[in-house]
């Protein structure tokens, strides 16, 4: 029954919400997720603005509801291989990468991970921590099954080890596992591939990659998160010290014609949130947010900014820093920016000044998912000049892409925060429902 089912691409909060809505409407949902677990970027966050809800605590119930729904089939560690056909009659081939683990047997007990000798950088912790070759992306992963990283595994690369196979009581390790190709016939496609952080290294003036204590917003989020590499202690990379002063630099790569001309919409708020979290963990920590426009446009956002300033010792500096240098002994980053001061005569003098802090957090631009281009080609989708999925009629069909029967929601079609992504996800579900119930209505008065 091809036309009562839909493929959702991307298992972040938007993909999850769309899948839940569509499944509750009675449609069959195939949720294709590239990484071993659904959860997406939201799973990497410690808290969410403006309510400071613990991100995982409001995401986990949704992940479990989605995975447990009888109308949803999770296709994790899988990619869209090819899409043929048109609206209401798509033929979608999905490539399931081999996990070398039998999902029906693995209980996620973690014995294998403990014994595995190979340690590689952990993408979930944006490279800050290490993970094993056989790993669970994060404690609350759904499905709670391990995966063997074939580039890291000693056996798969050098034919040695296989210790995970010995310790696994469930006998779930299966090195013979092959790539699987699934043919799906669906009525519609719903894209929710989310975003990737823009690599701020290209802005050499900010010294990311050269100055140890200059990190990105997502790295900061992992450092302050309890399930992160440092167990939630804000230890700065150079010496593990808890910073006394933190500078947040906004619009790194955003609103910049040489890099990303658009505003990534969420950085002002997540910088404020991270400043609040820092002060909450360490009451005498002081934060400085260097911004151009403080874009707090959502519900209860302004109150959040006011509280940050009044109760959490956050000061907002309206200036775009020119460069960041480092004090070699203390490895404290120094932020250079210009400000306006008034001479005694009262006329303004613009001068360059500097602020030494213990840690700099670059709120970098957010871009569509890296292999988003490739997927767009497979589907014949147009992209706008910033690389987002083009939406023809943004006003009255905000989730319809250039290809009939293919819808896009969340960050992949434009910068937006979690509530807006969740809204667009449900909106896309409604649009899909219109198409998939087109056939019933024709039957009605056929």
């Amino acid at each position, binding site marked *: 029954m091809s036309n009562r089912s839909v493929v959702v691409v991307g298992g972040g909060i938007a993909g999850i919400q769309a899948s839940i809505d569509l499944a509750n409407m009675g449609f069959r949902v195939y949720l294709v997720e590239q990484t071993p677990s659904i959860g997406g970027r939201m799973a990497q966050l410690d808290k969410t603005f403006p309510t400071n809800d613990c991100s995982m605590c409001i995401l986990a119930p949704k992940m479990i509801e989605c995975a447990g729904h009888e109308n949803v089939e999770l296709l994790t560690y899988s990619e869209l291989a090819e899409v043929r056909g048109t609206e209401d009659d798509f033929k979608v081939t999905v490539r399931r990468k081999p996990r070398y683990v039998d999902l029906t047997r693995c209980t996620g007990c973690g014995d294998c991970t403990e014994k595995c000798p190979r340690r590689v950088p952990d993408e979930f912790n944006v490279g800050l921590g290490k993970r094993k070759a056989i790993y669970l992306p994060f404690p609350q992963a759904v499905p709670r099954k391990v995966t063997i990283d074939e580039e890291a595994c000693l056996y798969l690369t050098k034919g040695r080890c296989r210790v995970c196979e010995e310790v696994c009581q469930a006998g779930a390790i299966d090195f013979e596992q092959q790539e699987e190709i699934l043919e799906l016939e669906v009525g519609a496609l719903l894209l929710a591939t989310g975003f990737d952080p823009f690599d701020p290294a290209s802005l050499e003036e900010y010294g990311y990659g050269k100055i140890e204590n200059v990190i990105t917003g997502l790295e900061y989020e992992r450092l302050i998160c309890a399930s992160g590499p440092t167990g939630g202690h804000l230890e700065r990379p150079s010496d593990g010290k808890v910073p006394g002063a933190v500078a947040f630099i906004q619009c790194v790569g955003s609103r910049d014609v040489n890099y990303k001309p658009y505003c990534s919409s969420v950085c002002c708020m997540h910088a404020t949130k991270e400043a609040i979290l820092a002060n*909450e963990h360490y009451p005498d920590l002081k934060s400085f947010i260097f911004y151009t426009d403080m874009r707090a446009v959502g519900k209860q956002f302004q109150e959040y900014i006011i509280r940050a300033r009044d109760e959490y010792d956050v000061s907002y500096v309206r200036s775009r820093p020119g460069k960041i240098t480092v004090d070699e002994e203390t490895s404290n980053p120094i932020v250079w920016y210009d400000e306006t001061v008034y001479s005694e005569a009262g006329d303004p003098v613009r001068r360059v000044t500097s602020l030494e802090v213990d840690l700099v957090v670059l709120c970098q631009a957010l871009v569509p998912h890296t292999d988003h281009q490739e997927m767009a080609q497979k589907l014949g989708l147009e992209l706008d000049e910033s690389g987002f999925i083009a939406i023809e009629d943004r006003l009255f069909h905000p989730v319809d892409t250039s290809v009939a029967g293919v819808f896009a929601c969340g960050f992949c079609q434009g910068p937006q925060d979690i509530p807006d992504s969740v809204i667009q996800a449900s909106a896309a579900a409604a649009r899909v429902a219109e198409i998939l119930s087109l056939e019933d209505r024709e039957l009605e008065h056929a």
Partner: protein
Amino acid sequence: MASESSDEGGNGYEPKILVFACNWCSYAGADLAGVSRLQMPANCRIIRVMCSGRVRPEFVVTALSKGLDGVLVLGCHPGECHYSEGNYFTRRRGLLLKNLLQFVGIEPERFQVRWVSASEGAKFADTVEQVTEQIRALGPNRPQGGMHSTEPGDR
């Protein structure tokens, strides 16, 4: 902010206060106070009920006479009750019970009713702070059993 350490206020007497909170408004307000990390004294214990209208006077009288130091009933603001009328009955019962308890000599601060909505995290924290301090000032609510008077009863 809230009283910092717990042993301030006399000989380390820590009142124990029973709070009834309605699921839709005051319990949500308490959650919001939590989410906003509003620090407050730790003397209150919340029992969740679906509506403040569920709290029968027997609970209040029993709690006070079993020696709890105070009972605080929280509900939605009149007009905002999820069940539209529940808190109107809480209001009348509260008015009557407050007078009756005062008439038999129980300090008025020991039984209080307050309206806290789902978006009033701060008001919840302030209410807890205020009620705790008022009751701490009264001192322990000695269980009545212990109070054997000696003179013969008079008319």
